[in-house]
């Protein structure tokens, strides 16, 4: 609020909205009103699609189907029950969200184009059912005679009335999407887009978060469909076909994916363009296609996407599908990183804070509260006869091991010995061919990564997997959400409980960042940090979920001697302070020797030695297999 940039931005926003409100009063042309209503309705759809496509990174090729479900539901509820618009809109939204929720379950684990195809299929099924279910939808004849939007005290009659109704809907939709995206749920959504494995590794329920986002987006599209039905007073399948989804895709991409206003700008542009080109008659769509290509060529990240145009600097790389990750963001982030501001997303500070700098009302939880001790005598982790085959090749063979509470166990062995595979098996990234894994008395052999993580077993990766389009702080907050239970409703309404949870989170994250000396870089994009800092962020991100057992896959890789020594010291410290157990896969033998209570040596997928570090290194088998040549 004290930042000049914010004031300018908000003033601009207010001016745009004010203009949108006043314009139809000044221009008294019903055709223009009709056009404006069409633009705003398209913008609502684009905004909802942006949630899934832009922030979620999911190619939702069936989005128009949810629009159709909303429209048909509203039409049927209105025609059969004579219900007023608020009721039909709610019915439309609920049905669309419900269908999205139900169909999302079996397909959300699909990746990339498999997901896109499944969504396309759903959109197609919606259209086919609407088209052929004659007794309910009147098939190709459509449903005529739907009442105009009736808000009980007032009915939208003219195009201008409908325009205002759509405008209110658009603002609500934008608010809903922004609140979602700014919440830890939204951070989880973006995290999963950047790296779904990484997100799952800290316990983010990737499928659950995506389902929520998809349901919310479908719900918004459903309301838009309801408004369409009452506005046009007629529903048939044409507006809900693949062409509509493709148009929405173009709107979001041209405007800028993952930005607040991009979809609105894209919707306005691509809806008005054919109108402007009307005089070209048959050549109209030829020009439209050419202009679409031209815009993408000039600004592949979208008009409002961050980053330079074609004539500017290098474009953001492929690995970052989100333009908001582009080079402009960090600069802006550091500008707005006044001590008072929360995480930065899309250039808008997220309102997590209560009063500036005020201490939260409740006792601040510490980041690394000691986990309750496991039942005495029981190992925390027990792995029994674990084996894994890859295409007939045995990567891990009959490995059994145990980790006691508070113990640090080193897992060493030459390259290809199966260390990482064991980590992948324990953390749930791969399924074992045979054997069982018990954690804290629970069988987790077949649990998903995120479930394993939520149970308190969290890993890091050999190749760092940070959420590149999020800041350091947001990376940590995205992981922190596993300690929260957030309902969509609480996020949308910003309930008191939600705000309190956010206050707690802020304190905890501050503390965690301070512990690792990362306060100074907390508002930088994670991908821009030095290698050592990225490693640290990855560990903080894991720790903030309050694990009982940490699986560290080569945490010292790429660190210099001083850094790795510091890491060793630090690992001991967190163990001492919080009593958590660690499995450490590491090539830096100095680190291993210093911190580990026990070493397990692997070769060719089997355990060849196990015991106290000083004993193990003298073990003849180990010397031959591992230390013989290189140490």
């Amino acid at each position, binding site marked *: 609020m004290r930042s000049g940039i914010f004031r300018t931005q908000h003033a601009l926003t207010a001016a745009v909205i004010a203009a949108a409100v006043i314009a139809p009063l000044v221009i008294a042309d019903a055709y223009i009103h009709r056009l404006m209503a069409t633009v705003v309705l398209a913008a609502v759809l684009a905004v909802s699609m942006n949630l899934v496509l832009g922030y979620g990174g999911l190619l939702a090729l069936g989005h128009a189907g949810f629009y159709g479900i909303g429209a048909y539901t509203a039409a049927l509820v209105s025609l059969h029950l004579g219900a007023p618009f608020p009721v039909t809109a709610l019915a439309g939204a609920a049905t669309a969200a419900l269908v999205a929720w139900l169909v999302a379950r079996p397909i959300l684990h699909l990746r990339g184009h498999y997901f896109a195809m499944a969504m396309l299929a759903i959109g197609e099924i919606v259209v086919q059912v609407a088209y052929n279910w004659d007794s309910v939808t009147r098939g190709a004849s459509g449903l005529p005679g739907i009442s105009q939007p009736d808000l009980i005290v007032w009915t939208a009659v003219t195009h201008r009335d409908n325009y205002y109704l759509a405008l209110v809907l658009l603002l609500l939709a934008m608010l809903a999407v922004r609140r979602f995206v700014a919440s830890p749920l939204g951070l989880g959504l973006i995290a999963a887009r950047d790296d779904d494995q990484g997100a799952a590794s800290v316990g983010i329920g990737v499928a659950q978060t995506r389902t929520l986002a998809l349901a919310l987006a479908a719900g918004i599209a459903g309301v838009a469909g309801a408004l369409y039905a009452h506005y046009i007073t007629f529903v048939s399948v044409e507006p809900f076909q693949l062409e509509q989804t493709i148009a929405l895709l*173009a709107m979001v991409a041209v405007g800028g994916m993952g930005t607040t206003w991009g979809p609105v700008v894209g919707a306005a542009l691509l809806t008005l363009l054919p109108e402007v080109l009307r005089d070209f008659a048959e050549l109209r769509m030829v020009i439209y296609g050419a202009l679409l290509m031209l815009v993408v060529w000039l600004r592949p990240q979208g008009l409002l996407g961050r980053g330079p145009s074609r004539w500017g600097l290098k474009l953001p790389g492929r690995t970052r599908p989100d333009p908001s990750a582009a080079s402009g963001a960090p600069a802006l982030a550091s500008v707005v990183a006044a001590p008072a501001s929360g995480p930065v997303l899309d250039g808008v500070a997220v309102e997590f804070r209560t009063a500036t700098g005020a201490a939260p009302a409740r006792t601040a939880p510490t980041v690394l509260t000691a986990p309750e001790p496991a039942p005495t005598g029981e190992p925390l982790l027990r792995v029994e006869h674990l084996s894994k085959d890859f295409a007939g090749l045995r990567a891990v063979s009959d490995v059994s091991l145990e980790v006691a509470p508070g113990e640090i166990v080193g897992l060493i062995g030459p390259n290809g010995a199966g260390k990482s595979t064991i980590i992948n098996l324990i953390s749930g990234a791969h399924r074992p061919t045979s054997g069982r894994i018990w954690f804290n008395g629970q069988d987790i052999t077949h649990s998903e990564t995120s479930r394993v993580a939520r149970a308190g077993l969290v890993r890091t990766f050999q190749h760092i997997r940070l959420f590149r389009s999020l800041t350091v702080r947001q990376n940590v907050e995205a992981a922190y959400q596993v300690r929260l239970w957030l309902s969509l409703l609480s996020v949308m309404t910003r309930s008191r409980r939600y705000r309190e949870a956010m206050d707690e989170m802020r304190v905890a994250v501050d503390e965690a960042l301070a512990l690792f000396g990362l306060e100074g870089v907390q508002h930088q994009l994670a991908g821009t940090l030095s290698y050592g800092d990225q490693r640290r962020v990855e560990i903080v991100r894991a720790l903030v979920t309050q694990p009982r057992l940490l699986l560290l896959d080569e945490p010292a890789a790429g660190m210099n001697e001083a850094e790795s020594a510091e890491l060793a010291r630090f690992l001991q410290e967190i163990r001492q302070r919080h009593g958590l157990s660690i499995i450490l896969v590491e090539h830096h033998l100095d680190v291993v020797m210093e911190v580990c209570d026990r070493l397990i040596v692997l070769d060719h997928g089997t355990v060849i030695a196990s015991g106290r570090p000083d004993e193990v290194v003298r073990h003849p088998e180990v010397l031959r297999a591992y230390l013989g040549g290189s140490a």
Partner: protein
Amino acid sequence: MAAVTLPVLIDQLVSGLAIGGVYALVALGFALIFGVLRAAQFAHGEVYMVVAFLVLAVLPWFPALGPLQFLLVIVTAAIFGAIAGMLIERGVFRPLADAPHIAPIISTIGLMILLQNLVAYLKGSELHRFALAWPQGNVSVGPASVPVLKLVIFGTALVIPALLQVALTRTQLGRAIRATAIDAETARLMGVNTARTSLVAFAIGSALAGIAGVLVGALYGVVYSTMGVTALVKGYAATIIGGVGNLVGAVAGGLLLGLFEVFVASYVSPRWTDAIVYTLLIVLLALRPQGLVGRAIPEKL
């Protein structure tokens, strides 16, 4: 409805394999381009449409030499397709090589809209008669009598992928393409000229689309400006059914899709064919997220 007899079944089978063969060629081209560039070519169906129109324009000059004419048509279509593909690779994909993933998708959607409407503007949006002098007539297959054309289309859709498979495994360039498809970064490090392989992959993939375009023209007896949309959606679906990046899978997926369509239309209802086929597709994906033929490759962690 008529009883299900062997001749009827054979008839249906051949029809399904003919249209499935067209889908297979479209899918194979789509999968090849996708494999090498990791980018979806949404104007792939428009290549198929434009080539069909171009071949229709030059058809009157072709001598009526029976099977030889057919061969000539296929080769011409492949050449037109390859040229179109190279133009698209250079003009649309190359400039967006460093752009976000969505950029080439949107750009090719623009191209799709452009080409579709340009052809409609130049040639009209009505159906245009497309007839080849060969193959005509029917032939006996067991107890059934089926159109030779359908058998030829199915045969073409088997022979061409087989030739491609040989080219991809036996030639230097083919191996480079496969290496790039598996891991572009590693391929580049190992000295593969990825710029050239992507151009070649585009040329081959689009040539396949062009061939499919003339085959479907012959099958339906007409070509029209919006024919590419169906081809894209079906080709995309076939690619997914087979497993992305899996060329054998793309062919199998195409044939399977064609068979499914014909049998559902025959024994359920043509009205519900699309709804049922898409439902089956979702069920398939829920059970086998990597497609039918695709193998779940554990991701490198």
